[in-house]
């Protein structure tokens, strides 16, 4: 591998992970109510299987996959379906969701089930089992995990790249997963290598997580070619394309997927989730989230049932301080702001970051002084300041010609801009407008 353990450009926000980096993962008790949106993954929403009044056991399927790029959804607690209807979704919209009143004195034991023996399974059967368990990428995008396990026949995959970079400030979900469950991550790697038929895997971890690096090095399998590569601490090191560049020196062509340069990238928490399917037979009904930030009284790493409401998770972490200003799902660089404490934590929720007045104060915008800091920050070598001027002029087609599509909205340009120009924010808006225009034209 000819990577240099870093990509070029990028920014260095304070990582702020000290709040939870050494806090052991705790299991949160079952809340009184669970809310499960049918859309928790990239691809088609799941199709509803239950009705109002139905009783479900923990782990029961309540909605099934609708096509290949879709996954089923399972009840994360035993209880009664009280309602099916619109509910606030983490992306800011309303989405169809199943509300389950959790049974108070239930032991929450799932129905007995067969644990699939992965060794005897063909790749296609592994893919099927992973899809049936509803596993998605737990790094944020929630892309169905089984799709990554079945690349098209003509793709030449030569290695598995395990993403343990976790470059977003504050979040320690992947960090704690690696430090506390290294064997599970290694088991997930083994299953994925077996299924993909690749002989090599590299685990990329930013150097600010020495205990995670140590844990995974200690548990490396003797019979597989798996290596741990400590990476430069730099945002956005965990973006797929940046990670591939850092590890291999290869550049994923614009508009193409990692598999075009022979790589499949999977995040460590997702690998642990795949491993769990073959350890317990249980579907993805809980996940690890970091609940942190200066306005959380007791920052924690928690195992929560999928569908736990934000309010319950925050309560369990001691509640919020009075100077709370903004609640984010995800990290402060790319996270989504939340307006409603009843919004559920879903499969793709990597963490909750609660900012206070000191972090999130309104700032005066100045004219662009052409300092060029955004050019030096952009990991895909765009010209953010020029794109920003085009956005302000409403010249969206010209932005497209200036490679707007390559922008992944990492926010590095906005982070460094001394004039506080909301560059990344304008690019998100422009991308949306262009998408809408295209839908209209079609």
């Amino acid at each position, binding site marked *: 591998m000819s990577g240099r353990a870093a990509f070029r450009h990028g920014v260095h*926000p304070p990582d702020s992970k000290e709040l939870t980096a050494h806090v052991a993962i705790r299991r949160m008790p079952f809340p009184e109510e669970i809310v499960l949106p049918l859309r928790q993954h990239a691809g088609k929403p799941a199709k509803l299987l239950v009705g109002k009044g139905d009783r479900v056991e923990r782990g029961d399927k309540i909605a099934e996959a609708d096509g290949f790029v879709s996954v089923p959804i399972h009840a994360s607690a035993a209880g009664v379906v009280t309602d099916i209807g619109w509910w606030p979704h983490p992306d*800011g919209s309303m989405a169809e969701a199943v509300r389950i009143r959790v049974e108070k004195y239930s032991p929450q034991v799932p129905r007995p089930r067969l644990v699939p023996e992965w060794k005897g399974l063909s790749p296609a059967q592994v893919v099927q089992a992973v899809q049936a368990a509803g596993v998605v990428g737990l790094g944020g995008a929630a892309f169905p995990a089984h799709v990554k396990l079945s690349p098209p026949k003509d793709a030449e995959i030569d290695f598995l790249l395990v993403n343990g970079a976790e470059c977003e*400030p504050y979040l320690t979900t992947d960090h704690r997963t690696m430090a506390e469950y290294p064997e599970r991550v290694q088991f997930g790697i083994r299953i994925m290598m077996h299924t993909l038929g690749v002989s090599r895997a590299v685990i990329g971890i930013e150097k600010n997580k020495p205990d995670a690096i140590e844990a995974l090095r200690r548990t490396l399998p003797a019979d597989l070619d798996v290596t741990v590569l400590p990476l430069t601490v730099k945002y956005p090191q965990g973006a797929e*394309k940046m990670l591939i*560049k850092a590890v291999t020196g290869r*550049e994923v*062509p*614009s*508009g193409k997927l990692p598999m075009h340069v022979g790589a499949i990238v999977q995040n460590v928490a997702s690998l642990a989730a795949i491993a769990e399917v073959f350890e317990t037979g249980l579907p993805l009904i809980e996940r690890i989230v970091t609940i942190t930030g200066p306005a959380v009284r007791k920052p924690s790493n928690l195992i929560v049932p999928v569908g736990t409401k934000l*309010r319950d998770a*925050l*309560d369990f972490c001691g*509640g*919020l301080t009075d100077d*709370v*200003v*903004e*609640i*984010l799902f*995800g990290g*402060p*660089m*790319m*996270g989504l*702001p939340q*307006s409603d*404490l009843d919004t559920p934590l879903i499969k793709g929720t990597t963490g909750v970051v609660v*900012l206070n007045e000191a*972090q*999130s104060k309104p*700032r005066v915008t*100045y*004219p*662009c*002084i*052409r*300092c*060029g*800091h955004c*050019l*030096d920050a952009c990991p*895909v*070598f*765009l*010209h953010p*300041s020029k794109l920003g001027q085009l956005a302000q002029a409403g010249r969206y087609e010209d932005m497209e010609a200036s*490679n707007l599509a*390559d922008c992944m*909205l990492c*926010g590095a340009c*906005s*982070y*460094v801009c*001394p*004039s*506080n120009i*909301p560059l*990344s*924010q304008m690019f*998100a808006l422009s991308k949306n407008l262009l998408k809408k225009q295209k839908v209209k034209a079609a």
Partner: protein
Amino acid sequence: MSEPRLDLTASPHIKGPDSTPRIMWSVVASLVPVIGAATWLFGPSALLVLFASSAGAVATERLFGARNSLGDGSAAITGLLLGLTLPAGFPMWMAFVGGAFGIGFGKLIFGGLGQNVFNPALVGRAFLQAAFPTAITTWPAAGQAWGALRGGNFALPFMSAGVDAVTEATPLNLMKFDHQPTELLRLALGNTGGSLGETSAVLILLGGLFLASRRYLNWRVPASILASVAVFAGALWSIDPARYPSPLFMLLSGGLMLGAIYMATDMVTSPTTNRGAWIFGTGIGLLVVLIRVWGGLPEGVMYAILLMNALVPFIDRATQPRVFGTRTAKAAG
């Protein structure tokens, strides 16, 4: 839990420490030692000239600029930098006019901060050089009594400067017209004749290092200017050391340090790309040597920078970085 009032803003939600006013005022702060040196060398006259040029710049920005644009500090920088290019005995009213012209016609007419093509301080200086060629080349001698005015600072508009000043030729004048070099140590420390801020190369360099360490200036610009001056002047010098000045003399004399570190690095009027910065700086260095050696003027830093300012949009366009993952985009059309 009571319902908190929550903000909803688009990501990113955190912000780096830099801000435009902070950059600008840092530049001002880094000039303090240079201003101190000028005051030490030229007495109260230095402060009078700097005050007048800054007042001209700031007043113009206040009158015609955008609302609250004084706070960003850019007008103050223009005024101070202009003042530093002027001789100590310069009449205050002229310095005021220069500052006003620099801001008005060098910056505001283009649309204010960030929009101007040419360095406003140098636009002001170019105007003064054209309008008052005698006053701007009347260099007071170093080493006069500290408290003495170095010329007609208080001259009234359009009256002749009524004070006799003790003057001295600058090192570049001596070189150009009398072929007489100046001791290098004196150049480095600054106790020679010349403009207020042209004199102490060491202090200017220190200010530049401070700004570069905070990334408030692109070090590639001064580095390439100084390197290209050294290379071109060195080449000439090695051909005929009797006829051409030594590269060290070229580096330390005149406005080169001030120009390379404070004028050419103006973010607004220099390239945004790093490759562009190298081209821009090299071009300035080459022009400086050309003007100093073969031009009619003893000093060429101002025109060199202004000329290269004009090329910045082209340099920027030609040096756009290749977008990630588009290695073959050009070949593929």
